[in-house]
């Protein structure tokens, strides 16, 4: 029973930790499937988190916060799109730039507005997304094993968590079953083929990049409106990069992305739980070793099981007709 409830708690925390990763990862998926590499996920998350917190604080409504977050993220997505698609600039540089810009501007503006070193005031009540309990969660609790699983792991999260799962579903379905999805899949592999088929390559790529913007907007809003209660400079703490790792893990596919992100979240949760717990045989493991665990495991998994992950063939290459 002890173990079970502990395990449940870890899973629960794993879910929470994996949500921002999942949003960012799906964002990356759309962008890269269309042939635009995006290492600016981190920056978009950060910008969204700030805008969301600021707007939520101003209006007292989490939903307007979410809207603002999405808009901010879209802004940066447009910059990246313009550089990568219209200007055929180097997509990695543009991504790095987006990250730095977001880091600088959020702190700068935040400081100018609130005079707290970029921090937004703490958010209360309606300005945050509160957990919602799924129907019959309490009743189900009684059922051994499955009950708590449903009540504690599946139920009791903010609406954005369920939105993330929905986003995964939509992404998978759209890519697989719709005209738009087919064209996205094609343009990431061979833009010339799409072009000669009479479809505009830039339009497709812009669309994908903007979708990525929306998704990062949700991720950022989740950070500052659901997981935390307000914005803090640098609060994304590298999640954008972990999301990229997850994307490669998932070989640019939607459901595997969900799996990969949950894996990362879970590893994180477990490492939290292992701190200070003394291992049989080894004795007390140094904190740093535990903290490094998720990263070490990632490398091992990557080397051991994933093997070569081949990105969409045209990703990272601007589309130029005339050599």
């Amino acid at each position, binding site marked *: 029973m002890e173990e079970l409830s502990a395990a449940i708690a870890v899973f629960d925390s794993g879910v929470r930790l994996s949500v921002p990763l999942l949003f960012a990862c799906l964002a990356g998926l759309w962008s890269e499937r269309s042939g635009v590499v995006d290492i600016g996920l981190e920056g978009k998350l950060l910008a969204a988190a700030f805008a969301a917190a600021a707007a939520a604080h101003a209006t007292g409504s989490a939903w307007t916060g979410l809207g603002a977050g999405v808009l901010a993220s879209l802004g940066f997505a447009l910059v990246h799109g313009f550089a990568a698609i219209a200007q055929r600039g180097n997509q990695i540089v543009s991504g*790095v730039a987006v990250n730095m810009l977001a880091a600088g501007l959020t702190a700068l503006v935040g400081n100018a507005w609130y005079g707290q070193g970029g921090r937004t005031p703490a958010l209360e009540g309606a300005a945050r997304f509160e957990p919602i309990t799924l129907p019959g969660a309490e009743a189900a609790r009684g059922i051994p094993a499955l009950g708590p699983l449903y009540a504690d792991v599946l139920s009791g999260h903010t609406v954005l968590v369920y939105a993330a799962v929905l986003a995964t579903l939509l992404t998978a379905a759209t890519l697989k079953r719709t005209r738009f999805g087919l064209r996205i899949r094609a343009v990431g592999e061979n833009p010339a083929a799409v072009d000669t088929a009479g479809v505009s390559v830039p339009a497709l790529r812009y669309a994908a990049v903007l979708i990525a913007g929306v998704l990062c907007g949700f991720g950022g809003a989740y950070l500052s409106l659901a997981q935390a209660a307000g914005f803090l400079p640098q609060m994304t703490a590298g999640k954008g990069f972990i999301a990229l790792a997850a994307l490669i893990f998932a070989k640019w596919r939607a459901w595997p992305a969900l799996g990969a992100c949950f894996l990362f979240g879970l590893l994180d949760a477990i490492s939290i739980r292992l701190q200070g717990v003394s291992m049989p045989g080894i004795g007390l493991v140094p904190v740093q070793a535990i903290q490094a665990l998720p990263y070490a495991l990632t490398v091992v998994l990557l080397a051991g099981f994933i093997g070569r992950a081949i990105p969409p063939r045209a990703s990272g290459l601007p589309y130029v007709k005339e050599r």
Partner: protein
Amino acid sequence: MSAPIEMRRWADYVLVPALAVAAAFVVAGLVVLAIGENPLEATALLLRGALGTGEGVGFTLYYATNFIFTGLAVAVAFHAGLFNIGGEGQATLGGLGAALACLHLDFLPGWLLVPLGALGAALFGALWALVPGYLQARRGSHIVITTIMFNMLASALLVYLLVNVMGKPGSMQPETPTFASAAHVPFAHEVLARLGVTVPTTPLNASFLLALACCYGVWLLIWRTRLGYAIRTVGANPAAAAYAGIPISRVTIVAMMISGALAGLLAVNEVMGVQERLLLEFTGGYGFIGIAVALMGRSHPVGIVLASLLFGVLYQGGTELAFDKPTITRDMIVTISGLAILFAGALDGLFRAPLGRFFAARRKAGG
């Protein structure tokens, strides 16, 4: 034939970045306006702060030193078709290598200890890059991820060592004891003082020369050696490399190690040169700026030096700016750097295309 090409080169490495940076400043100016300061005044302060005083220049060059090391590191990997985001971690390990040498070989004379320290830095940096390189070459693990992960692992390792193993007893600060004086890398102001020239005290030290030497070394390696030829072939066209009988995975690993070694040398400037002890977070994000530097510099040493100088100016000038204008915080530096990277690295087309046309016209006119 060659004249116009030279012209374009020159434009590519100097003119385009210059215009781009100008554009970056314009946009940054708007931000400054938005927070209620005078952009022109700010720009003036920034430039004067970076280039107007001896101290400013010293700091600018000191920062540039870091960027040159990390920029070269990224560039070498690029030529082999590898994207090494691991500069931070490799530099961290470089610091460890330097510290171990300086702390445990302190009985040696300076002329021997300092080079050994540098060697340690390069060696450890190379080893930390070896693993991702190997995994990429032999197991096909994506180098971008593995290097990111190795950054995290490096910082964890360093905290552990500084707190539990190498830390100076009784210090709150997780840091090693200060190195023996033999390990001291001469500062510019010391050297010049000995020559009778007095300049303000700055962190600028001999590693700047080392950085320039590395630039020449990298140029030689990439464009004038057989290994460099192999590296570029693997990077540009792996199939052709296989056809040419070039051992691809070995070259990949070697390239990564060279890249890691260059990143590791950052420690010579920061750990041996300035801090004279190993401490947490001394890499200060220079590894990431290195990516931008390499890309802006078109992975060519000349371009890298120029880009490094640019960021040196932004860092030092920005500091002075923050000093004189409390409303403009240190975050302004990050913002301007971001803009510079954006315009010079990704939106350069805005300026390259018109320039190209201009020169084409010039050439036609010239006949």
